[in-house]
């Protein structure tokens, strides 16, 4: 099912030079310049906002909103300290975010792995209908999902509860995990389980002892992407979360008030929200192509 086989970040051929950055040797000097101008401009465009956020989070006093933006300043931790002391303590928000993201990702991964394996091996007639249902559930517009869930949750008393938020996140994470694990399992030839069955494994044993250990990359990638999607959510939380279930993105949005915005604290929250996801996301960089194209393109 793969359209490509080479890793996205692997050199197309062995490098000619041993140090520094080098190029396709057939490249003209003009081509080299154009390439680096394109990449340089794009890197600046990509990185400046992130660097500016990081710097802002360490600016004390009025530095963060200086009319003449400051690249050089005396670093201060007052924004971070302010987030964890006084009236607006960030810890409950962090806790809610962690619980909602980890539990929804974990449950989705467990159920999605089982279902994804079943889906990759089933010979049922309506398989394509089932696949289509799963992918369209994942892709359903959040706004269209929030509405009926709001009514159902109100009915079931799940508004402003963590279980409610976890269920809401599973509306997109469970179909995502199922679909993606199906794509990873489809890469493993069925002859492996057949061999295990012949040597006396049960079907469950073949799955558990043979297939799962071969799918570690898929499991980790799926789990991490589910975690990122849930952690980064704002649309669901803005409707379902109340005082006892507010998450970090909500905390960030609440710093925007009628009277003004505390940009120092906001950039600090931004940093707290972003850094863990960047670390996790880059940890599975090799499989990101597969994960984010829902298994349609494999980069590995």
């Amino acid at each position, binding site marked *: 099912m793969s*359209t490509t*086989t*080479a890793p*996205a*970040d692997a050199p*197309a*051929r062995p490098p000619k*030079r041993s140090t520094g950055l080098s*190029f396709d040797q*057939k490249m003209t000097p003009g081509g080299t310049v*154009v*390439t680096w101008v394109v*990449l340089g401009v794009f*890197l600046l465009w*990509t990185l*400046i906002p*992130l660097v*500016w*956020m990081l710097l802002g989070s360490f600016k004390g006093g009025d530095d963060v909103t200086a009319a003449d*933006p400051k690249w050089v300043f005396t670093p201060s931790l007052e924004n971070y300290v302010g987030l964890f002391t006084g009236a607006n303590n960030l810890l409950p928000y962090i806790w809610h975010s962690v619980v909602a993201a980890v539990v929804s990702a974990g449950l989705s991964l467990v*159920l999605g792995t089982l*279902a994804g394996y*079943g889906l990759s091996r*089933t010979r049922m007639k309506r398989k*394509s209908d089932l*696949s*289509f249902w799963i*992918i*369209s559930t994942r*892709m359903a*517009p959040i706004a*269209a999902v*929030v*509405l*009926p869930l709001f*009514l159902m949750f*109100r009915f079931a008393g799940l508004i402003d509860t963590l279980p409610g938020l976890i269920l809401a996140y*599973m*509306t997109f994470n*469970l179909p995502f995990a199922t679909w993606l694990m199906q794509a990873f399992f489809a890469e493993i030839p069925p002859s492996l389980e057949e*061999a295990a*069955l*012949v*040597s006396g494994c049960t079907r469950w044993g073949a799955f558990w002892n*043979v297939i799962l250990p071969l799918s570690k990359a898929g499991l980790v990638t799926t789990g991490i992407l589910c975690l990122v999607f849930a952690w*980064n*959510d*704002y649309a669901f939380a*803005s*409707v379902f979360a109340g005082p006892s279930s507010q998450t970090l*993105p909500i905390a*960030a949005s609440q710093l925007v008030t009628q009277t003004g915005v505390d940009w120092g604290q*906001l*950039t600090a929250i931004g940093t707290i929200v972003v850094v863990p996801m*960047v670390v996790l996301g880059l940890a599975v960089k090799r499989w*990101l*192509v597969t994960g*984010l194209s829902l298994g349609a*393109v494999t*980069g590995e």
Partner: protein
Amino acid sequence: MTQTTAQPTGGQELAPERVQQMKQPRRPRRGLGFPGLLMAPAVIFMAGLSIIPFLTLIGMSFSRVRLLGGAALEWRGLDNWARALTDPNLWTSWATTVLYFVVTVGLELLIGIGVAVALHRVLRGRGLVLSLVLLPMFVAPVIVGLLGRYLVDPTFGLYTNWLQAVGIDIDPLGSPVTAFIAVALMDVWEWTPLITLITLAGLSGVNPSVLEAAALDGAGRTRTLFHIIFPSISNVLLVAFLIRSMDAVRYFDIITITTNGGPADATKIVPLRLYETAFRFFDLGYAAAIGLMMLAVTIAMAKVFVRLLDRKGLAQ
């Protein structure tokens, strides 16, 4: 895993019924079978989280939703649908959505593919550059929006400051056209890396011998790119396009937190109008009709996506 190396020849010692089983793998099964059993929990869960809400949404779209003391539906027939089809504000929102979609996805494809082609030429250091390029994708959209507001603030924004330095003195989020451009660019900032990532995977998969043949035939760089490379990764590009398209209707956090649809509805794409209708005016029935319209668009795109996977043998 030692089992993975087990050979079918080990079957000599097997019980006869197991050998029988292996000989007839397509024997009709009773009940769900093993794959069906594994799928059951997730399917039941998803039914609860997808089919029941879907039916609820349909019910809501034909009703007036009363929220006092729980929730109750009052049958209203086709009222909401008639309103949805004739509401000029909603059609304006659809037009805004289409424009927003064309601008963001168009720019993302253009820039994303360009950067991928450039990155593909870099041999050493590609991994590092790619890692840096990918960063925006992991940033929560709501943080992207807030960060954008910080950067384009008329008094202390870094970007507004730079614009002033070259003689452009504006409040980007303050007027319709610039606000639209600003929120579109925030989306482009966040999602261009996805296109780059997918395109780069496609480029890495192009058969080198084809490229060598093209070079021997005297094809130039540009001709090779447009006549050989792009056609051979057209499926990959289509996948990137479809995924971004479906997500473009999905996410609206950036706009919510920056302009919330303003100024003068210039950035009020359909999901924002739905949220406003549902959670500010509490007209959930009408919002449900809007939601079903959006769902129809997504389902049509998902259909194309799945068909593409089937036809090209990308899935199954």
